[in-house]
């Protein structure tokens, strides 16, 4: 059905994502002229964090998201450690270099020592020796292993359970020949399940579901849409892997359970990791646990190498036209992550830090997380109000936000996209809208000549008969996610081996108590904890006052990608990508929109958490 000139297309809810996302699009016939991305739900977790014990912050922050369930806990722990460490180092230099960034919010002079600190205790904080303030190597390795597990788990599930149904037609699988399917699967990989009997069972399962008349989660979808291009056999194979991946993810996620006690929402601790290593104990990390870990790591590698990656290339081959659209900004940002040594040494990161502008991979810009003019958030299109007006952006250390819903009263049909239209802010780097996520990271590794990235990217592109420019697209984003999964799953084994090596040498330390006892802390300071979450660059900026959190700001991947227009009316990454050559076959079946949005892997609960308050709210003290 054709849309009339300037008729507006609304897709809400966008499903198979995390959280609440709405897209409104101004159409020119069946082509998207202008797209507007709106986050439609707010909770206010940052305001809830104010006044809390910094050691507790990870648990609150972690509840920002239960899909990328590890990342906010991790970023939070890092922000507290960075705050404490910076303040220690500043204290050590005091008199030499007063007024350094970490000290800006600290009271002057003698008040610092002897004033009432955490929970009313006098702070006896002395600056520890530099050697004593590192996070133990084992804790660093365990964190890397947990983060890498999150990547592999999240990316595989994203592809099969959130993205695949944009490319795979469930009903078409009924026409597949199981013998041919097995033959096809056998040419792609050595996955042991690829037998005719296996695919026959799978086909029977789909048939039963369809014939029951109750399609459940598959009902009312776009089956039969001409945008689906896969042969029946590929559809059947992919559907089988959809179910296999459900089974696989339950098992490999046990890495989080072993170190963190459960998944979703594993546990962390400021100063290290909560799980002790004692090979001779019946609890904690013992020999039995190490065997389970190795088993899970091997299972992860098998599934990525034999199922996920081959499927991406096989399915991608039928959708090469999607390498020509959905690019969007061409600007990319990474904070970097997965350190070999510590978070203070970006040169040791597997994922480098940097910015790319206008597709130019020859120039990588440095990114300074503390510099007020670099990372800023704008609210000119958001339901918030800045004290000094909504024209200027604010760096997260100075971030302020007041909820002010100015949208239409529900139930509504349309948002006023000429005014404010989202609960997301608009983050910008030096004024530029940036894309974050797997494509940004792969481009950064590729530009910095990471050998594995070069090899996997080049061989994939050559297999698909595509050029480097194809990466800047919907298909490129989905391919990049698989490329980095392959890199990370290889690295996982290396970190695990390094952990074993340490244990063999008698090094079993997993925790630095200096970071945990508030008596050791300087009582004021500020810091930032960053990580590369599966969906992109994530930063938690924290200000500590009198041993409690006085300001907490998260700038998260989906805020970068899904944020609305800024004061210059520059569109965000989703909006730009949807405006890049999207002609819908049938606007009532928005399959094309889902493909491009899902290529970003939206995570809206992450993006809309922002509710910070300054002034009186900032001084609110919780009843403990």
């Amino acid at each position, binding site marked *: 059905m054709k849309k009339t000139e300037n008729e507006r297309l609304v897709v809400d809810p966008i499903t198979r994502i995390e959280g609440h996302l709405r897209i409104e699009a101004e159409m020119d016939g069946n082509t998207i002229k202008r797209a507007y991305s709106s986050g439609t739900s707010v909770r206010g977790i940052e305001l809830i964090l104010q006044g809390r014990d910094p050691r507790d912050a990870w648990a609150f922050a972690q509840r920002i998201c239960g899909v990328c369930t590890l990342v906010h806990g991790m970023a939070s722990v890092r922000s507290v450690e960075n705050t404490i460490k910076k303040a220690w180092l500043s204290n050590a230099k005091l008199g030499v270099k007063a007024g350094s960034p970490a000290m800006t919010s600290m009271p002057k002079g003698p008040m610092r020592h002897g004033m009432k600190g955490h929970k009313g205790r006098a702070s006896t904080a002395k600056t520890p020796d530099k050697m004593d303030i590192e996070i133990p190597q084992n804790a660093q390795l365990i964190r890397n292993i947990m983060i890498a597990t999150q990547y592999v788990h999240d990316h595989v599930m994203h592809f099969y359970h959130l993205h695949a149904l944009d490319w795979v037609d469930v009903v078409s699988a009924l026409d597949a020949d199981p013998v041919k399917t097995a033959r096809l699967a056998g040419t792609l990989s050595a996955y042991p399940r690829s037998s005719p009997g296996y695919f026959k*069972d799978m086909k029977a399962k789909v048939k039963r579901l369809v014939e029951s008349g109750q399609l459940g989660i598959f009902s009312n979808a776009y089956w039969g849409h001409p945008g689906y291009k896969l042969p029946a056999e590929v559809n059947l194979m992919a559907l089988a892997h959809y179910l296999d991946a459900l089974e696989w993810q*339950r098992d490999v996620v046990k890495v989080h359970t072993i170190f963190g006690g459960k998944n979703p929402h594993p546990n962390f601790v400021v100063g290290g990791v909560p799980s002790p290593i004692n090979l001779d104990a019946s609890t904690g990390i013992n020999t039995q646990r190490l065997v389970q870990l190795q088993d899970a790591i091997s299972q992860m590698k098998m599934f990525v190498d034999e199922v996920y990656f081959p499927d991406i290339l096989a399915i991608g081959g039928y959708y090469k036209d999607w390498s020509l659209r959905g690019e969007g900004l061409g600007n990319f940002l990474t904070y970097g992550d997965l350190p070999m040594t510590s978070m203070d040494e970006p040169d040791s990161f597997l994922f480098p830090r940097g910015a790319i502008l206008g597709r130019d991979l020859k120039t990588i810009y440095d990114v300074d997380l503390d510099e007020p003019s670099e990372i800023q958030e704008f609210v000119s299109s958001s339901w918030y109000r800045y004290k000094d007006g909504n024209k200027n952006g604010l760096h997260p250390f100075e971030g302020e936000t007041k909820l002010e819903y100015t949208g239409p009263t529900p139930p509504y049909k349309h948002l006023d996209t000429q005014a404010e239209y989202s609960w997301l802010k608009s983050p910008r780097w030096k004024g530029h809208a940036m894309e974050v996520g797997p494509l940004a990271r792969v481009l950064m590794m590729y530009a910095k000549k990471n050998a594995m990235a070069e090899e996997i990217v080049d061989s994939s592109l050559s297999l698909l008969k595509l050029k480097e420019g194809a990466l800047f697209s919907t298909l490129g984003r989905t391919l990049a996610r698989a490329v980095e999964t392959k890199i990370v799953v290889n690295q996982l084994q290396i970190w695990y081996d390094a952990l074993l090596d340490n244990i063999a040498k008698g090094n079993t330390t997993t925790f630095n108590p200096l970071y945990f006892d508030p008596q050791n802390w300087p009582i004021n300071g500020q810091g930032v904890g960053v990580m590369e979450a599966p969906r992109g660059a994530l930063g938690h900026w924290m200000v500590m006052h009198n041993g409690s959190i006085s300001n907490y700001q998260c700038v998260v991947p989906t805020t970068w990608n899904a944020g609305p227009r800024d004061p210059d009316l520059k569109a965000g990454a989703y909006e730009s990508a949807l405006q890049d050559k999207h002609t819908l076959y049938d606007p009532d079946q928005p399959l094309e929109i889902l493909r491009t949005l899902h290529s970003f892997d939206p995570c809206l609960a992450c993006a809309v958490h922002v509710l910070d308050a300054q002034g009186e709210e900032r001084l609110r003290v919780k*009843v*403990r």
Partner: protein
Amino acid sequence: MTKTTLNEQLQRSGISRRTFLKFCATTASLLALPQCAVAEIAQALGSASRPTVIWLPFQECTGCTESILRSHAPTLESLIFDHVSLDYQHTIMAAAGDQAEEARRTAIKNNKGKYLLLVDGSVPMGNPGYSTISGISNVDMLRESAAHAAGVIAIGTCASFGGIPKANPNPTGAVSVADIITDKPIVNISGCPPLPIAITAVLAYYLTFNRFPDLDHLNRPLAFFGETIHDRCYRRPFYEKRMFAKSFDDEGAKNGWCLFELGCKGPETFNACATVKWNQGTSFPIESGHPCLGCSEPDFWDKGSFYQPLFPWQKYKAKPGKGQQKHKGS
């Protein structure tokens, strides 16, 4: 297309009667039901077309959905392909936008009085614009979807008690499902997130007996919330011997001593983590070295630091164990 019964489906799918009965037996034992209930469960699941389930997401983080995706027994796939028809679930449903909303409305219209409504996330009452789906406020969508439901299951601490959005200072005026819906049977399956087996067992119970299981004073199923973590903790003997870890990675921690002094909330937390454990019985927070946060209790976010001991351990008196009456009085 004709509707087939579960039993027929299972037999056609090569799932033997024996395997099927085994699942029924597992469910029965988890819910502490007598052995004769196995046959009853089997009969109920074997004679119905799949009952409709609608899952509404409000102020949530999707952790509760992720939790049920980790369910081992039954698996999510067997649950939704063999036992229920999950007609609306944002995270995994194929349809989006208008087609998704149509699926919800059709499911309600065709199953009036018969479908189960599952909800995760709290409901913001501060402003209807704080959380909307398809332009509809959460509170309106909840009322509209609950009106014809047979019963409502609040999944997770946010839907059960308000959870983290309701934590001080509750910026959006978040409330629980039971604060809005007062004329329907409601089960609260709390936890941040809840144990997946608690969710699937309550579903199985309902499908079998057409009613909800026995509940505690907070409307949580007694089978999972009848005892505290502390009651069933494998480290309890160390508590009794007053052997406590004083810090992470110290001698006590390395030897699996009690985490009470590190702030463990196990003594006041009713949940089944210590018995069924997480991710196919792999571990639970205490076993991995971290104190219990108390995440299945109302307002656990505002009960003081997670690392502050509950009270000087000398003052501890054993809490009453299993049993509804005792629990209600606690």
